[in-house]
Protein backbone atom coordinates (compact mmCIF):
# COMPACT_ATOMS: atom_id res chain seq x y z
CA UNK A 1 0.00 0.00 0.00
CA UNK A 2 1.39 3.35 -1.06
CA UNK A 3 0.72 5.98 1.59
CA UNK A 4 0.35 9.58 0.42
CA UNK A 5 2.32 11.13 3.28
CA UNK A 6 1.89 14.71 2.07
CA UNK A 7 -1.89 14.36 1.96
CA UNK A 8 -2.09 12.62 5.36
CA UNK A 9 0.23 15.19 6.96
CA UNK A 10 -1.93 17.98 5.60
CA UNK A 11 -5.08 16.41 7.06
CA UNK A 12 -3.29 16.09 10.41
CA UNK A 13 -2.02 19.71 10.28
CA UNK A 14 1.60 18.58 10.28
CA UNK A 15 4.44 19.38 7.96
CA UNK A 16 7.26 16.92 7.41
CA UNK A 17 10.79 18.16 6.76
CA UNK A 18 12.11 17.36 3.28
CA UNK A 19 15.00 15.23 4.61
CA UNK A 20 12.71 13.12 6.80
CA UNK A 21 10.11 12.49 4.13
CA UNK A 22 11.58 9.26 2.78
CA UNK A 23 12.10 7.81 6.26
CA UNK A 24 8.54 8.61 7.34
CA UNK A 25 7.18 7.21 4.08
CA UNK A 26 9.01 3.90 4.53
CA UNK A 27 8.17 3.56 8.22
CA UNK A 28 4.50 4.31 7.65
CA UNK A 29 4.33 1.79 4.83
CA UNK A 30 5.94 -0.88 7.03
CA UNK A 31 3.41 -0.22 9.79
CA UNK A 32 0.52 -0.29 7.32
CA UNK A 33 1.89 -3.56 5.88
CA UNK A 34 1.87 -5.07 9.38
CA UNK A 35 -1.73 -3.93 9.85
CA UNK A 36 -2.80 -5.45 6.54
CA UNK A 37 -1.97 -8.94 7.82
CA UNK A 38 -5.20 -8.89 9.82
CA UNK A 39 -7.80 -11.20 8.26
CA UNK A 40 -11.00 -9.81 6.80
CA UNK A 41 -13.94 -10.42 9.09
CA UNK A 42 -17.71 -10.48 8.82
CA UNK A 43 -20.17 -8.70 11.06
CA UNK A 44 -20.18 -5.41 12.89
CA UNK A 45 -18.76 -4.33 16.25
CA UNK A 46 -20.26 -2.72 19.31
CA UNK A 47 -18.59 0.51 20.35
CA UNK A 48 -19.61 0.29 24.02
CA UNK A 49 -19.15 -2.61 26.44
CA UNK A 50 -22.75 -3.78 27.00
CA UNK A 51 -21.99 -5.15 30.49
CA UNK A 52 -20.63 -1.78 31.66
CA UNK A 53 -22.60 0.95 29.92
CA UNK A 54 -21.56 4.54 30.43
CA UNK A 55 -23.51 6.71 32.81
CA UNK A 56 -23.59 10.29 31.59
CA UNK A 57 -23.81 13.10 34.11
CA UNK A 58 -26.79 15.42 34.12
CA UNK A 59 -26.53 18.49 31.93
CA UNK A 60 -26.77 21.10 34.66
CA UNK A 61 -25.15 24.41 35.53
CA UNK A 62 -22.51 24.13 38.24
CA UNK A 63 -19.30 25.88 39.27
CA UNK A 64 -16.31 25.50 36.94
CA UNK A 65 -12.74 26.79 36.77
CA UNK A 66 -12.22 30.54 36.89
CA UNK A 67 -11.58 32.22 33.54
CA UNK A 68 -8.24 33.69 34.64
CA UNK A 69 -7.03 30.28 35.84
CA UNK A 70 -7.91 28.66 32.52
CA UNK A 71 -6.30 31.45 30.49
CA UNK A 72 -3.04 31.31 32.46
CA UNK A 73 -1.75 28.62 30.12
CA UNK A 74 -2.74 30.32 26.86
CA UNK A 75 0.21 31.63 24.81
CA UNK A 76 -1.53 34.93 24.04
CA UNK A 77 -4.61 36.49 25.65
CA UNK A 78 -6.41 39.80 25.54
CA UNK A 79 -9.48 41.02 27.45
CA UNK A 80 -10.19 37.54 28.82
CA UNK A 81 -9.99 35.80 25.44
CA UNK A 82 -7.35 33.77 23.59
CA UNK A 83 -5.79 35.59 20.65
CA UNK A 84 -5.51 33.93 17.21
CA UNK A 85 -4.65 35.33 13.77
CA UNK A 86 -7.48 36.96 11.86
CA UNK A 87 -9.73 34.30 10.27
CA UNK A 88 -12.30 36.41 8.39
CA UNK A 89 -11.58 39.16 5.93
Amino acid at each position, binding site marked *: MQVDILHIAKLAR*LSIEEEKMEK*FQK*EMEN*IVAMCEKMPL*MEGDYTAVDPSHPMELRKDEVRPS*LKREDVLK*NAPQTQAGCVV*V*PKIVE
Partner: protein
Amino acid sequence: MELFEMTAASLSEKLRKKECSAVEITRSTLGQISNTEKQIGSFVTVCEERAMQKAEEVDRKIAAGETISPLAGIPIGVKDNICTKDVLTTCSSKMLYNFVPPYNATVVDRLEQADAVIIGKCNMDEYAMGSSCETSYFKKTKNPWNSEYVPGGSSGGSASSVSAGEAVLALGSDTGGSIRLPASYCGVVGLKPTYGSVSRYGLVAFASSLDQIGPLGRSVQDVATLYSTICGRDPMDATSAVREYGDFAGKMNRSVKGLRIGVPKEYFGDGVDPEIKTAVMSGIDLLVKEGAQTVPVSLPSTDYALSAYYIISSAEASSNLARFDGVKYGYRTEKYTNLLDLYEKTRSEGFGDEVKRRIMLGTFVLSSGFYDAYYKRAKQMQQKISAEYALAYSQCDVILTPTSPSTAFKIGERTDDPLKMYAADICTVTVNIAGLPAISVPCGIASNGLPIGLQMIGPKFSEQLLFDVAGCFENLCGGFGVAPAMKG
Protein backbone atom coordinates in the same frame (compact mmCIF):
# COMPACT_ATOMS: atom_id res chain seq x y z
CA MET B 1 17.91 -0.88 55.61
CA GLU B 2 17.37 2.80 54.81
CA LEU B 3 13.85 4.29 54.95
CA PHE B 4 13.73 4.88 51.18
CA GLU B 5 14.16 1.15 50.54
CA MET B 6 11.22 0.03 52.66
CA THR B 7 7.69 -0.80 51.56
CA ALA B 8 4.75 1.52 52.16
CA ALA B 9 3.27 -1.08 54.53
CA SER B 10 6.32 -1.17 56.80
CA LEU B 11 6.80 2.61 56.67
CA SER B 12 3.17 3.17 57.61
CA GLU B 13 3.56 0.82 60.57
CA LYS B 14 6.68 2.72 61.67
CA LEU B 15 4.76 6.00 61.47
CA ARG B 16 1.93 4.61 63.60
CA LYS B 17 4.38 3.27 66.16
CA LYS B 18 6.23 6.62 66.05
CA GLU B 19 9.50 4.86 65.18
CA CYS B 20 10.11 7.45 62.49
CA SER B 21 8.47 10.62 61.20
CA ALA B 22 6.99 11.42 57.78
CA VAL B 23 9.61 14.15 57.40
CA GLU B 24 12.37 11.56 57.90
CA ILE B 25 10.84 9.29 55.25
CA THR B 26 10.53 12.12 52.71
CA ARG B 27 14.04 13.37 53.53
CA SER B 28 15.46 9.86 53.03
CA THR B 29 13.72 9.56 49.64
CA LEU B 30 14.84 13.06 48.55
CA GLY B 31 18.35 12.10 49.64
CA GLN B 32 18.25 9.04 47.41
CA ILE B 33 16.98 11.22 44.55
CA SER B 34 19.92 13.59 44.91
CA ASN B 35 22.31 10.60 44.97
CA THR B 36 20.91 8.71 41.99
CA GLU B 37 18.90 11.09 39.82
CA LYS B 38 21.89 12.22 37.76
CA GLN B 39 22.50 8.62 36.77
CA ILE B 40 18.87 7.44 36.38
CA GLY B 41 16.81 10.51 35.41
CA SER B 42 13.39 9.32 36.60
CA PHE B 43 11.82 12.75 37.03
CA VAL B 44 10.87 15.72 34.89
CA THR B 45 10.10 17.67 38.08
CA VAL B 46 11.05 16.92 41.70
CA CYS B 47 8.55 18.49 44.12
CA GLU B 48 10.93 18.94 47.04
CA GLU B 49 9.22 21.82 48.82
CA ARG B 50 5.66 20.56 48.43
CA ALA B 51 6.71 17.09 49.54
CA MET B 52 8.32 18.42 52.72
CA GLN B 53 5.24 20.54 53.50
CA LYS B 54 2.96 17.53 53.10
CA ALA B 55 5.24 15.39 55.27
CA GLU B 56 5.16 18.04 58.00
CA GLU B 57 1.36 18.09 57.79
CA VAL B 58 1.26 14.31 58.27
CA ASP B 59 3.55 14.56 61.29
CA ARG B 60 1.23 17.18 62.81
CA LYS B 61 -1.73 14.82 62.31
CA ILE B 62 0.14 11.97 63.96
CA ALA B 63 1.20 14.21 66.86
CA ALA B 64 -2.43 15.29 67.31
CA GLY B 65 -3.43 11.63 67.60
CA GLU B 66 -5.40 11.54 64.35
CA THR B 67 -5.92 8.24 62.51
CA ILE B 68 -3.81 8.22 59.35
CA SER B 69 -4.44 6.47 56.02
CA PRO B 70 -2.09 3.67 54.88
CA LEU B 71 -0.55 6.05 52.31
CA ALA B 72 -0.09 9.01 54.68
CA GLY B 73 3.51 10.23 54.53
CA ILE B 74 4.46 7.78 51.74
CA PRO B 75 6.52 9.32 48.88
CA ILE B 76 4.81 8.66 45.54
CA GLY B 77 5.92 9.49 41.99
CA VAL B 78 3.26 10.57 39.49
CA LYS B 79 3.66 10.08 35.74
CA ASP B 80 3.93 13.42 33.95
CA ASN B 81 0.75 12.91 31.92
CA ILE B 82 -1.40 13.06 35.08
CA CYS B 83 -2.50 16.60 35.95
CA THR B 84 -1.24 18.07 39.21
CA LYS B 85 -2.63 21.49 40.16
CA ASP B 86 0.09 24.18 40.13
CA VAL B 87 2.79 21.61 39.24
CA LEU B 88 4.23 21.37 35.71
CA THR B 89 2.64 18.51 33.69
CA THR B 90 4.49 18.08 30.40
CA CYS B 91 3.69 14.63 28.99
CA SER B 92 7.47 14.74 28.34
CA SER B 93 6.70 16.82 25.25
CA LYS B 94 7.95 20.15 23.97
CA MET B 95 4.27 20.79 23.19
CA LEU B 96 3.47 21.02 26.92
CA TYR B 97 6.87 22.17 28.18
CA ASN B 98 5.23 25.01 30.17
CA PHE B 99 1.80 23.57 31.01
CA VAL B 100 0.74 24.09 34.64
CA PRO B 101 -2.71 22.51 35.15
CA PRO B 102 -5.32 24.60 36.97
CA TYR B 103 -6.81 21.38 38.44
CA ASN B 104 -5.90 17.96 39.79
CA ALA B 105 -6.62 14.64 38.13
CA THR B 106 -9.11 12.65 40.24
CA VAL B 107 -6.37 10.17 41.19
CA VAL B 108 -4.20 13.05 42.46
CA ASP B 109 -7.11 14.39 44.53
CA ARG B 110 -7.45 10.92 46.04
CA LEU B 111 -3.72 10.75 46.82
CA GLU B 112 -3.93 14.14 48.53
CA GLN B 113 -7.00 13.11 50.53
CA ALA B 114 -5.00 10.05 51.66
CA ASP B 115 -2.12 12.39 52.70
CA ALA B 116 0.34 10.73 50.31
CA VAL B 117 3.49 12.75 49.59
CA ILE B 118 3.83 13.50 45.86
CA ILE B 119 7.59 13.46 45.44
CA GLY B 120 7.85 14.28 41.73
CA LYS B 121 6.57 13.98 38.20
CA CYS B 122 7.98 10.98 36.36
CA ASN B 123 9.57 11.00 32.92
CA MET B 124 7.85 9.05 30.15
CA ASP B 125 7.78 8.50 26.42
CA GLU B 126 6.31 11.61 24.79
CA TYR B 127 2.49 11.45 25.16
CA ALA B 128 2.95 7.86 26.44
CA MET B 129 3.84 6.69 22.93
CA GLY B 130 6.78 4.35 23.24
CA SER B 131 8.20 1.30 24.97
CA SER B 132 11.56 2.60 26.15
CA CYS B 133 11.22 6.11 27.61
CA GLU B 134 13.55 7.29 24.82
CA THR B 135 11.02 9.55 23.06
CA SER B 136 10.86 12.01 25.99
CA TYR B 137 11.67 15.56 24.89
CA PHE B 138 13.61 16.20 28.12
CA LYS B 139 15.83 13.23 28.88
CA LYS B 140 16.37 9.51 28.52
CA THR B 141 15.66 7.61 31.73
CA LYS B 142 18.07 4.75 32.52
CA ASN B 143 17.38 1.30 33.95
CA PRO B 144 18.44 1.20 37.65
CA TRP B 145 19.73 -2.38 37.18
CA ASN B 146 22.16 -1.27 34.47
CA SER B 147 22.23 2.27 33.15
CA GLU B 148 23.19 1.19 29.62
CA TYR B 149 19.69 -0.23 29.26
CA VAL B 150 16.24 1.34 28.87
CA PRO B 151 13.77 1.20 31.77
CA GLY B 152 10.93 0.29 29.38
CA GLY B 153 8.02 2.54 28.60
CA SER B 154 6.07 4.45 28.44
CA SER B 155 5.89 4.81 32.27
CA GLY B 156 9.69 4.41 32.41
CA GLY B 157 10.29 7.08 35.06
CA SER B 158 7.54 5.68 37.28
CA ALA B 159 9.13 2.20 37.19
CA SER B 160 12.73 3.43 37.51
CA SER B 161 11.90 5.72 40.46
CA VAL B 162 10.37 2.81 42.38
CA SER B 163 13.20 0.46 41.42
CA ALA B 164 15.88 3.02 42.38
CA GLY B 165 14.29 3.88 45.73
CA GLU B 166 13.50 7.41 44.50
CA ALA B 167 9.83 6.77 45.33
CA VAL B 168 8.09 4.13 47.42
CA LEU B 169 5.19 3.88 44.98
CA ALA B 170 4.31 5.46 41.64
CA LEU B 171 1.39 6.03 39.32
CA GLY B 172 1.74 5.18 35.66
CA SER B 173 -0.67 4.83 32.76
CA ASP B 174 -1.09 1.79 30.54
CA THR B 175 -2.54 1.93 27.00
CA GLY B 176 -0.76 -1.11 25.52
CA GLY B 177 1.60 -2.24 28.27
CA SER B 178 3.02 1.05 29.53
CA ILE B 179 2.86 0.06 33.22
CA ARG B 180 3.61 -3.67 32.97
CA LEU B 181 6.51 -3.47 30.49
CA PRO B 182 8.64 -0.99 32.51
CA ALA B 183 7.64 -2.80 35.72
CA SER B 184 9.08 -6.01 34.26
CA TYR B 185 12.22 -4.32 32.87
CA CYS B 186 12.93 -2.63 36.22
CA GLY B 187 12.04 -5.58 38.48
CA VAL B 188 9.03 -4.05 40.24
CA VAL B 189 5.31 -4.87 40.54
CA GLY B 190 2.90 -3.04 38.19
CA LEU B 191 -0.86 -3.30 37.78
CA LYS B 192 -2.89 -2.35 34.73
CA PRO B 193 -6.40 -2.17 36.23
CA THR B 194 -9.67 -3.17 34.56
CA TYR B 195 -10.78 -0.50 32.09
CA GLY B 196 -13.22 1.78 33.89
CA SER B 197 -12.09 0.99 37.44
CA VAL B 198 -9.83 4.05 37.80
CA SER B 199 -10.95 7.52 36.74
CA ARG B 200 -9.14 8.99 33.74
CA TYR B 201 -10.22 12.56 34.57
CA GLY B 202 -7.06 14.64 34.38
CA LEU B 203 -5.03 12.05 32.48
CA VAL B 204 -3.83 13.58 29.21
CA ALA B 205 -5.68 11.34 26.74
CA PHE B 206 -3.75 9.12 24.31
CA ALA B 207 -6.29 6.41 23.36
CA SER B 208 -9.33 6.98 25.55
CA SER B 209 -10.87 3.51 25.09
CA LEU B 210 -7.62 1.78 26.15
CA ASP B 211 -5.90 4.16 28.63
CA GLN B 212 -5.93 3.25 32.31
CA ILE B 213 -4.03 4.71 35.27
CA GLY B 214 -2.45 2.17 37.61
CA PRO B 215 0.03 1.64 40.47
CA LEU B 216 3.67 0.47 40.57
CA GLY B 217 5.46 -0.61 43.74
CA ARG B 218 8.01 -2.93 45.31
CA SER B 219 5.45 -5.23 46.92
CA VAL B 220 2.08 -6.64 45.92
CA GLN B 221 0.49 -5.32 49.11
CA ASP B 222 1.72 -1.77 48.39
CA VAL B 223 0.31 -1.95 44.86
CA ALA B 224 -3.01 -3.22 46.25
CA THR B 225 -3.09 -0.36 48.78
CA LEU B 226 -2.48 2.28 46.12
CA TYR B 227 -5.06 0.66 43.84
CA SER B 228 -7.65 0.70 46.67
CA THR B 229 -7.01 4.43 47.05
CA ILE B 230 -7.36 5.42 43.40
CA CYS B 231 -10.11 3.10 42.10
CA GLY B 232 -13.83 3.87 42.13
CA ARG B 233 -16.62 5.61 40.31
CA ASP B 234 -15.99 9.20 39.27
CA PRO B 235 -18.80 11.29 37.77
CA MET B 236 -16.11 13.33 35.95
CA ASP B 237 -15.25 10.29 33.80
CA ALA B 238 -18.26 8.92 31.93
CA THR B 239 -16.41 5.65 31.27
CA SER B 240 -15.75 4.95 34.95
CA ALA B 241 -17.68 1.85 36.00
CA VAL B 242 -20.63 2.10 38.39
CA ARG B 243 -19.71 -0.38 41.13
CA GLU B 244 -18.41 -0.66 44.69
CA TYR B 245 -14.83 -1.63 45.58
CA GLY B 246 -13.47 -2.87 48.87
CA ASP B 247 -10.07 -2.66 50.54
CA PHE B 248 -7.99 -4.96 48.35
CA ALA B 249 -4.85 -4.96 50.49
CA GLY B 250 -6.80 -5.86 53.65
CA LYS B 251 -8.52 -8.80 51.96
CA MET B 252 -5.45 -10.47 50.41
CA ASN B 253 -5.24 -14.18 51.26
CA ARG B 254 -2.23 -15.20 49.12
CA SER B 255 -3.58 -18.70 48.50
CA VAL B 256 -3.65 -20.55 45.17
CA LYS B 257 -5.16 -23.88 46.32
CA GLY B 258 -7.42 -25.20 43.56
CA LEU B 259 -6.56 -22.25 41.26
CA ARG B 260 -6.75 -23.08 37.55
CA ILE B 261 -3.89 -21.37 35.70
CA GLY B 262 -4.43 -20.97 31.97
CA VAL B 263 -1.22 -21.24 29.92
CA PRO B 264 -1.75 -19.94 26.35
CA LYS B 265 0.70 -21.55 23.91
CA GLU B 266 0.68 -18.44 21.71
CA TYR B 267 2.63 -16.58 24.43
CA PHE B 268 5.44 -19.11 24.54
CA GLY B 269 6.28 -19.18 20.81
CA ASP B 270 9.49 -18.65 18.85
CA GLY B 271 9.51 -14.90 19.35
CA VAL B 272 9.96 -15.29 23.10
CA ASP B 273 13.49 -15.53 24.51
CA PRO B 274 14.04 -19.14 25.75
CA GLU B 275 15.44 -17.82 29.03
CA ILE B 276 12.19 -15.94 29.63
CA LYS B 277 10.06 -18.99 28.83
CA THR B 278 12.05 -21.03 31.36
CA ALA B 279 11.76 -18.38 34.08
CA VAL B 280 8.00 -17.97 33.56
CA MET B 281 7.42 -21.76 33.48
CA SER B 282 9.43 -22.19 36.73
CA GLY B 283 7.27 -19.46 38.26
CA ILE B 284 4.15 -21.37 37.24
CA ASP B 285 5.67 -24.59 38.70
CA LEU B 286 6.13 -22.83 42.05
CA LEU B 287 2.40 -22.04 42.12
CA VAL B 288 1.51 -25.60 41.08
CA LYS B 289 3.52 -26.93 44.06
CA GLU B 290 1.32 -24.68 46.23
CA GLY B 291 -1.84 -26.39 45.00
CA ALA B 292 -2.66 -24.66 41.69
CA GLN B 293 -3.13 -26.63 38.46
CA THR B 294 -2.36 -25.65 34.87
CA VAL B 295 -4.81 -25.77 31.98
CA PRO B 296 -3.73 -25.34 28.35
CA VAL B 297 -5.76 -22.51 26.75
CA SER B 298 -5.62 -20.84 23.37
CA LEU B 299 -5.78 -17.19 22.31
CA PRO B 300 -5.35 -17.74 18.56
CA SER B 301 -5.74 -14.09 17.45
CA THR B 302 -2.75 -12.90 19.49
CA ASP B 303 -0.72 -12.58 16.25
CA TYR B 304 -3.05 -9.83 15.05
CA ALA B 305 -3.24 -7.98 18.36
CA LEU B 306 -0.40 -5.54 17.62
CA SER B 307 -2.03 -4.54 14.32
CA ALA B 308 -5.42 -3.99 15.93
CA TYR B 309 -3.76 -2.12 18.79
CA TYR B 310 -1.80 0.29 16.59
CA ILE B 311 -4.83 1.03 14.43
CA ILE B 312 -7.24 1.67 17.31
CA SER B 313 -4.79 3.55 19.54
CA SER B 314 -3.42 5.71 16.72
CA ALA B 315 -6.92 6.51 15.43
CA GLU B 316 -7.92 7.73 18.88
CA ALA B 317 -4.61 9.55 19.33
CA SER B 318 -4.99 11.45 16.05
CA SER B 319 -8.31 12.74 17.31
CA ASN B 320 -7.24 13.35 20.95
CA LEU B 321 -4.07 15.20 19.97
CA ALA B 322 -5.90 17.57 17.62
CA ARG B 323 -6.38 19.88 20.63
CA PHE B 324 -2.67 20.76 20.73
CA ASP B 325 -2.69 23.65 18.30
CA GLY B 326 -0.89 26.53 20.03
CA VAL B 327 -4.08 28.36 20.99
CA LYS B 328 -5.24 27.37 24.49
CA TYR B 329 -2.10 26.04 26.19
CA GLY B 330 1.44 24.85 25.69
CA TYR B 331 3.90 25.62 22.92
CA ARG B 332 3.15 28.14 20.16
CA THR B 333 5.39 28.71 17.14
CA GLU B 334 7.03 32.12 16.90
CA LYS B 335 6.36 33.11 13.29
CA TYR B 336 3.14 32.45 11.37
CA THR B 337 1.13 34.07 8.62
CA ASN B 338 -2.39 32.79 9.28
CA LEU B 339 -4.35 30.38 11.50
CA LEU B 340 -3.58 27.22 9.49
CA ASP B 341 0.08 28.17 9.41
CA LEU B 342 -0.03 28.65 13.20
CA TYR B 343 -1.50 25.16 13.67
CA GLU B 344 0.87 23.45 11.29
CA LYS B 345 4.07 25.07 12.54
CA THR B 346 3.14 24.70 16.21
CA ARG B 347 2.34 21.00 15.80
CA SER B 348 5.35 20.26 13.59
CA GLU B 349 7.76 21.95 16.03
CA GLY B 350 6.01 20.79 19.21
CA PHE B 351 5.57 17.05 18.55
CA GLY B 352 8.41 14.53 18.25
CA ASP B 353 8.71 12.03 15.38
CA GLU B 354 7.00 9.07 17.09
CA VAL B 355 3.99 11.20 18.01
CA LYS B 356 3.79 12.51 14.43
CA ARG B 357 4.03 8.96 13.08
CA ARG B 358 1.10 7.82 15.21
CA ILE B 359 -1.04 10.88 14.46
CA MET B 360 -0.46 10.24 10.76
CA LEU B 361 -1.20 6.51 11.05
CA GLY B 362 -4.41 7.37 12.89
CA THR B 363 -5.35 9.99 10.33
CA PHE B 364 -4.67 7.50 7.55
CA VAL B 365 -6.79 4.65 8.97
CA LEU B 366 -9.71 7.00 9.57
CA SER B 367 -9.43 8.79 6.24
CA SER B 368 -12.05 8.49 3.54
CA GLY B 369 -11.74 5.20 1.64
CA PHE B 370 -9.59 3.42 4.23
CA TYR B 371 -11.88 3.32 7.27
CA ASP B 372 -13.46 -0.09 6.51
CA ALA B 373 -10.17 -1.73 5.56
CA TYR B 374 -8.36 -0.68 8.73
CA TYR B 375 -10.34 0.82 11.61
CA LYS B 376 -13.44 -1.34 11.21
CA ARG B 377 -11.32 -4.46 10.80
CA ALA B 378 -9.37 -3.61 13.95
CA LYS B 379 -12.56 -3.09 15.95
CA GLN B 380 -13.86 -6.45 14.71
CA MET B 381 -10.55 -8.01 15.76
CA GLN B 382 -10.93 -6.39 19.18
CA GLN B 383 -14.28 -8.15 19.58
CA LYS B 384 -12.73 -11.46 18.49
CA ILE B 385 -9.87 -11.15 20.97
CA SER B 386 -12.33 -10.37 23.80
CA ALA B 387 -14.39 -13.46 22.85
CA GLU B 388 -11.26 -15.64 22.89
CA TYR B 389 -10.44 -14.43 26.42
CA ALA B 390 -14.04 -15.12 27.52
CA LEU B 391 -13.77 -18.67 26.21
CA ALA B 392 -10.43 -19.17 27.96
CA TYR B 393 -11.91 -17.98 31.29
CA SER B 394 -14.58 -20.69 31.02
CA GLN B 395 -11.70 -23.15 31.49
CA CYS B 396 -9.37 -21.30 33.89
CA ASP B 397 -9.34 -18.59 36.59
CA VAL B 398 -6.23 -16.66 35.62
CA ILE B 399 -3.86 -16.64 32.62
CA LEU B 400 -0.08 -16.50 33.09
CA THR B 401 2.34 -15.31 30.38
CA PRO B 402 5.66 -13.53 30.06
CA THR B 403 5.23 -9.71 30.36
CA SER B 404 7.60 -9.15 27.44
CA PRO B 405 9.37 -11.49 24.99
CA SER B 406 12.78 -10.17 26.11
CA THR B 407 14.43 -8.34 28.99
CA ALA B 408 15.28 -4.62 28.72
CA PHE B 409 17.23 -3.67 25.59
CA LYS B 410 20.14 -1.25 25.25
CA ILE B 411 19.53 2.47 24.89
CA GLY B 412 19.42 3.33 21.19
CA GLU B 413 19.12 -0.32 20.08
CA ARG B 414 15.56 -0.07 18.70
CA THR B 415 15.06 3.64 18.01
CA ASP B 416 15.61 3.27 14.26
CA ASP B 417 12.96 0.62 13.72
CA PRO B 418 9.43 1.35 14.98
CA LEU B 419 8.24 -2.22 14.33
CA LYS B 420 11.04 -3.66 16.47
CA MET B 421 10.11 -1.21 19.23
CA TYR B 422 6.43 -2.13 18.95
CA ALA B 423 7.28 -5.85 19.31
CA ALA B 424 8.12 -5.30 23.00
CA ASP B 425 4.36 -4.90 23.58
CA ILE B 426 3.28 -8.17 21.95
CA CYS B 427 2.41 -9.86 25.29
CA THR B 428 0.65 -6.87 26.84
CA VAL B 429 -1.57 -5.24 24.19
CA THR B 430 -4.34 -7.88 24.13
CA VAL B 431 -5.11 -7.05 27.76
CA ASN B 432 -5.91 -3.41 26.87
CA ILE B 433 -7.80 -4.46 23.78
CA ALA B 434 -10.06 -6.67 25.94
CA GLY B 435 -10.22 -4.16 28.84
CA LEU B 436 -8.89 -6.74 31.34
CA PRO B 437 -6.75 -6.28 34.47
CA ALA B 438 -3.18 -7.68 34.55
CA ILE B 439 -0.29 -7.49 36.97
CA SER B 440 3.42 -7.94 36.23
CA VAL B 441 5.65 -9.37 38.98
CA PRO B 442 9.40 -10.07 38.85
CA CYS B 443 10.12 -13.79 38.33
CA GLY B 444 13.88 -14.07 38.01
CA ILE B 445 17.06 -12.58 36.61
CA ALA B 446 18.33 -13.31 33.10
CA SER B 447 21.96 -14.10 32.25
CA ASN B 448 22.47 -10.41 31.31
CA GLY B 449 21.69 -9.53 34.93
CA LEU B 450 18.33 -7.91 34.13
CA PRO B 451 14.94 -8.79 35.65
CA ILE B 452 12.25 -10.88 33.95
CA GLY B 453 8.51 -10.22 34.35
CA LEU B 454 5.63 -12.66 34.82
CA GLN B 455 2.23 -11.36 33.72
CA MET B 456 -0.99 -12.52 35.40
CA ILE B 457 -4.17 -11.69 33.48
CA GLY B 458 -7.65 -12.00 35.01
CA PRO B 459 -11.26 -11.48 33.92
CA LYS B 460 -12.73 -7.96 34.30
CA PHE B 461 -12.76 -6.67 37.89
CA SER B 462 -10.75 -9.64 39.22
CA GLU B 463 -8.04 -7.47 40.81
CA GLN B 464 -8.50 -9.19 44.19
CA LEU B 465 -7.71 -12.56 42.61
CA LEU B 466 -4.63 -11.08 40.89
CA PHE B 467 -3.37 -9.67 44.21
CA ASP B 468 -3.92 -13.07 45.89
CA VAL B 469 -2.01 -14.99 43.21
CA ALA B 470 0.73 -12.35 42.87
CA GLY B 471 0.98 -12.15 46.67
CA CYS B 472 1.37 -15.93 46.95
CA PHE B 473 4.07 -15.83 44.26
CA GLU B 474 5.83 -12.98 46.05
CA ASN B 475 5.96 -15.03 49.28
CA LEU B 476 7.31 -18.05 47.39
CA CYS B 477 10.19 -16.08 45.88
CA GLY B 478 10.99 -14.19 49.06
CA GLY B 479 9.83 -10.69 48.07
CA PHE B 480 11.15 -7.95 45.82
CA GLY B 481 13.12 -4.76 46.50
CA VAL B 482 15.13 -1.88 45.06
CA ALA B 483 17.63 -2.70 42.29
CA PRO B 484 20.88 -4.13 43.74
CA ALA B 485 23.02 -1.19 42.57
CA MET B 486 20.64 1.31 44.25
CA LYS B 487 20.66 -0.12 47.78
CA GLY B 488 21.56 2.21 50.63
